[in-house]
């Protein structure tokens, strides 16, 4: 039960984060003036986000291993 709670929490965070990020990146490309700057900043943000989300996933794995 507690495992499911952790997984659902992680998935909710992941979905909210991805939706928020898509909204921001959409605005940058739709209304931005200097597309080169927008592209570079978006790539940096995506790379940073992926690394942190992987770190969060490994933390989740540790929690799940300890609860089993």
């Amino acid at each position: 039960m507690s495992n499911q709670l952790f997984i659902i929490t992680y998935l909710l965070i992941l979905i909210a984060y991805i939706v928020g990020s898509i909204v921001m990146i959409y605005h940058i490309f739709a209304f931005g003036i200097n597309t080169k700057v927008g592209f570079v900043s978006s790539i940096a943000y995506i790379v940073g986000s992926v690394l942190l989300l992987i770190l969060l996933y490994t933390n989740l794995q540790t929690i799940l291993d300890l609860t089993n």
Partner: protein
Amino acid sequence: MLDRITGKHLHLPGQHKDEEVKIVFRRSIFFLIMPYILNLILLIILLVLAAILPNNITILQDPFIVSIFDFIITLIIIFILYTAFLTWTHYYLDAYIVTNQRVLTIDQIDFFNRKVSEADIGNVQDIEVVVKGFFSNTLNFGDVRIQTAGADQRILFFDNIPYPYKAKDIILKFAEDNRKVELHNAYTYDPTKTDPNSKSQDNNNNTQNS
């Protein structure tokens, strides 16, 4: 610099035909750096706490609690990254644009909430510069208020842009150039060189008259 860019590669949403973006002003970089410094301080405090607390609090010796603690710390770091990018997005989307035809202010109030004001650059009549406060004077940024003449009189605000006096000169120069071009076009106007649409309209009028 990020806060003042020029070049032909710039694309303006809703750009007119034969319109060329001359210069784009943004708020001073001070307004981007300040929130980033606050984010950085928050991040440092968080990392210091993450390093100190597990050694000093007995509850945090338990591996399960430690893993939950790490999870929360990572989550806060993700939130800081998100707010940093959000700050950047707002900074990037607020822009004050001068083209060879128009002056535009784009204010991104919120996501899906955007205010765009524009005026014909040839109608620019008066420009006022306001530099107020300690940071404005030391870091050289301020407000530029552009008043236009003509039937639709309006005031456009370029808030907290860097080097406002230089910006004022640049805008006045582009306005003067635009007026010269329009005057030249008016003097060299050749009625025989009209576009095909207006010719066909003239023909229709002639046939109706006859």
